[in-house]
């Protein structure tokens, strides 16, 4: 699989890229909320891990853009949240997110498992 990680925390990128790499997958890293659609078109990822709190544009806005664009709307999007507050999760799911992960509650191995299961249907 090839994954696009949209997340500004470099530590999380280091952890996720290591775990995905060890499982035979690749990760492209995008650090801000702007320019995501263009990056998706370049990378053609199998799934997108999208942080809900991003610089320049929120993850929810980015999600809406992804789902409104016919070239990107079919790619599974998994939201990364800190606390997974009810509003965040509901709004993300209502706007087409495939799932969400409370990033500080799981180890990267579980993220690989979740993304794999979503991509493989």
């Amino acid at each position, binding site marked *: 699989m090839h994954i696009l990680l949209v997340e500004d925390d470099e*530590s999380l990128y*280091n952890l996720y890229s290591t775990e995905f790499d*060890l499982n035979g997958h690749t990760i492209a890293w995008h650090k801000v909320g702007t320019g995501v659609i263009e990056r998706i078109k370049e990378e053609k990822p199998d799934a997108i891990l999208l942080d809900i709190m991003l610089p320049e544009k929120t993850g929810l806005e980015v999600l809406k853009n992804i789902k409104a664009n016919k070239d990107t709307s079919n790619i599974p999007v998994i939201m990364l949240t800190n606390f997974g507050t009810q509003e965040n999760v509901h709004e993300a799911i209502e706007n087409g997110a495939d799932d969400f992960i409370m*990033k500080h509650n799981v180890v990267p191995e579980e993220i690989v498992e979740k993304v794999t299961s979503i991509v493989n249907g």
Partner: protein
Amino acid sequence: MDNNSKTKEEFISLMVHELRAPLSIIHSSADILIRHKTELSDTKKDKLLGEVKLASEGMLDIVNDLLDTSKINSGRFEITKEPNNIQDVVNSQVSLFSNFAAESGHTFKVKISDRVPDRLFFDKERIAHVLENLISNAIKFSKGGEIIIEVLPFDGYVKISVQDFGVGIAEDKQIQLFHKFKQVSRPVDSKQKGTGLGLVVAKGIVDLHGGDIGVISKQGEGSTFWFTLPI
């Protein structure tokens, strides 16, 4: 729940959140290192250990600030005032931050007046901690650009100020910055990190020196944090 209890609940929630993020980095790094120890290259292992170190340092800072805040509030916080040179403290903090500032696109401009006395009575380590806090906030809350550090004699005091040209702080939030349990003004999902305790500790340290601390800020234009030490 009364307002005080609610604010304390919010404060605890923020602290838990701030501690959980680095703890999760440590946990995840250890998990990968243990499960993949034979497959990981030395470079990858070093990178993960670097993450553990960085995250644990962040946690230590938070715990130390919590302990200091508790000591300040119970009157058990102590300082040792000795003759020291404030110019040295400023220059040494600027030097410590120089690499970090360059990486984030910041430059320092240091202006120290010739009229500042060579010797002032203060706790060097504690005052360095105050400056460290103000400089790191200036870097954190501005997207690159200049940070001006100025040291001036001012009406029987020496005034040390740190000015950034970043996001600034709304007027109604400024007064809350230096008070325990009052700094929670953002949702837990906010991107801005930090407990806000650093400024509470800074105020405690400056108060014990007989000085004052404050901020002048305008949203969108930047902030000037300043403190004074008696001459």
